[in-house]
């Protein structure tokens, strides 16, 4: 168990021309579950491989409990890794697979037996110990490769590199739950790389959202959804993602496509901005609001997804399933002001000013 600290870590694969991972400093607290979320090529796997020692970073240092391990080879770091697909020694039984890391470290035989028994019980693998892992279902294979990491007592963190990629859809959920239970049972720090927001948001205490080699926002599932600090958080999290409108702020008023959206909370702002509002916070209103054409309505079971038009701008709205609405009509909608963000240079700078009571709806 340990705290892992990244100090100004950056990495370039081509000798400094482009950086796959731009400078990042952060501390991974002991026992927490983290997710690195982002699209392919955003640097999340690079960051993971730097931590496990597969890649040596171009810049910066990594410390585990204050000890610099930047130059230490993988086998001397107390880090375990689970890969995209089950990586197992096919010719060994499950038991031999679990014993392998300990045998290589010259752990005494009785200690090995005790650890393997303990881990097998924890993972529910007692009945499969003597068969070859190749005969197991893919999710159990992933559990075995996880076991190879857990079996070492000194392990500081377990890194997962999209571990559910090859798992059958039916077992993804159970495996994820199992990982979560294990996390609670062992208290080991987990770092989980994925491009699937559901996986990240349901699994981790803290999600690091990454884009183009940078961490754009760190926070809980709620933070990323309700308080996006970066346009990318709005765009990448949620389904469908945030609506964005080009807007102009003048005299504390936000105007987009010639339509007045309302006052801005931070009165020091002016000039061009982007307005972002999630489809969940585009709501029909009785009085006031903005008249918009309803272009299309889809019933998605449990909710309706409406495509609206504000001038020539497309706006998605997630509406209650029992709301009577149909394509072709014109209707007034409002943006929930506290959940409507103004972005400048992709960063959130303000929300809209909450209307005084009574003015809304």
């Amino acid at each position, binding site marked *: 168990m340990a705290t892992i600290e990244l100090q100004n870590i950056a990495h370039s694969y081509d000798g400094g021309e482009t950086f796959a991972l731009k400078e990042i400093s952060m501390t991974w607290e002991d026992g927490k579950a983290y997710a690195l979320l982002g699209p392919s090529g955003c640097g999340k796997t690079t960051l993971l491989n730097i931590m496990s020692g*597969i890649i040596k970073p171009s810049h910066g240092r990594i410390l585990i409990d204050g000890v610099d391990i930047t130059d230490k080879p993988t086998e001397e770091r107390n880090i375990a890794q689970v890969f995209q697909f089950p990586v197992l020694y096919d010719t060994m039984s499950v038991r031999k697979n679990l014993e392998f890391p300990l045998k*290589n470290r010259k752990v005494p035989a009785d200690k090995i037996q005790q650890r393997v028994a303990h881990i097998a019980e924890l993972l529910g693998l007692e009945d499969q110990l003597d068969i070859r892992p190749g*005969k197991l279902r893919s999710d159990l294979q992933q559990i075995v490769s996880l076991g190879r990491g857990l079996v070492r007592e000194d392990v500081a963190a377990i890194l997962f590199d999209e571990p559910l990629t090859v798992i059958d859809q039916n077992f993804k959920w159970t495996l994820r739950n199992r990982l979560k239970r294990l996390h609670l049972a062992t208290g080991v720090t987990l770092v989980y790389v994925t491009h699937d927001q559901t996986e990240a948001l349901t699994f981790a205490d803290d999600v690091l959202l990454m884009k183009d080699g940078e961490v754009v926002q760190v926070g809980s599932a709620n933070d990323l959804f309700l308080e996006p600090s970066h346009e990318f958080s709005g765009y990448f999290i949620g389904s469908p993602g945030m609506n964005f409108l080009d807007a102009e702020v003048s005299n504390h008023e936000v105007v987009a496509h010639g339509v007045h959206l309302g006052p801005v909370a931070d009165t020091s702002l002016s000039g061009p901005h982007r307005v972002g509002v999630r489809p969940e916070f585009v709501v029909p209103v009785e009085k006031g609001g903005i008249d918009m054409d309803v272009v299309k309505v889809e019933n998605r079971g449990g909710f309706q997804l409406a495509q609206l038009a504000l001038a020539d701008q497309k706006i998605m709205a997630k509406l209650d399933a029992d709301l009577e609405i149909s394509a072709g009509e014109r209707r007034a909608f409002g943006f929930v002001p506290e959940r409507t963000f103004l972005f400048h240079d992709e960063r959130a700078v303000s929300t809209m000013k909450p209307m005084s009571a009574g003015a809304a709806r």
Partner: protein
Amino acid sequence: MNTKKKNNRAWFLVLPVVLVVAFTAIIPLMTVANYSVQDVLSPDNRVFVGLEFFRQITTDPAIVAAFQRNIIFSTQILAIEIPLGIMIAKLMPRRGWKAAAALVIVAIPLVIPWNVVGTTWRVFARPDVGLLGVTMNQFRPFDIGNTPADAWFTMVMMDVWHWTPLVALLVYAGLRAIPDAYYQAASIDGASAVSVFRFVELPKLRRVLMIALLLRFMDSFMIYAEPYILTGGGPGTATEVMSILLAVIAVIQFDLGQAAAFSLIYFLIIQIFSFIFFTVLTLDERPGATKRAEKKVKAEARKREMADDAASRSGVTNE
């Protein structure tokens, strides 16, 4: 609704292949089979002799000796080429221009025709001007024309030089196909280089090694042009392998019946050996393998239970 009539006419699509195979393999083979059971005295005068030629062939001491030579030769070259090929593949660079250069250099012997290889090695082994012959002569008299051991040694070396690259290339391709994650996992597990080879690379190379083994066995068992040009089977009969003997019977003695019977036996031997290799090496992957493995596990579990039972019973009686 699907009202189309179902029939087996799709089989006609296989017809072209059947025709090609018939002309390239089945008909020639049956012609040989035809010759093997009759003595052709003249085009109009044939006598059916049954299995007489087969009896003659299998009891001919010269052929039995040649068969033994073939077995020894194949065993020796496999024992050298497979490990050596793996070693070379492991030493070859993984990527970049060096990898391309290494591939080309390693592949050079493979593109040289058999009889050119034979000629090259014949010169190479000459005790007066050949590099190998002269070098060996520094230590002791070396003459592949007179010393059987020298001739045999040179024949083995020639095959190793010519065909180890094939094994190396196959293994190299096999090694490149192993995902990096296996190496990364092994290094996280603290595995030594030997362990990585033993538990990661070797299991993953099983299939390519099987192909290499089969190809090299079949090819070396049929070897003809190289030893024929190198030594002509001599000195004496020291390097007389089956194919050389077969050529003598078929072309020089023009004993078609015996040659045909010999060919069929030769063909069968290679088929049988290849089948045995293949069966043994793929035992784990064939249908039923899982069931066999499960049965084994269950049997072991039962044994353990019985042992536990016995232990607890004996425990009770002790009290």
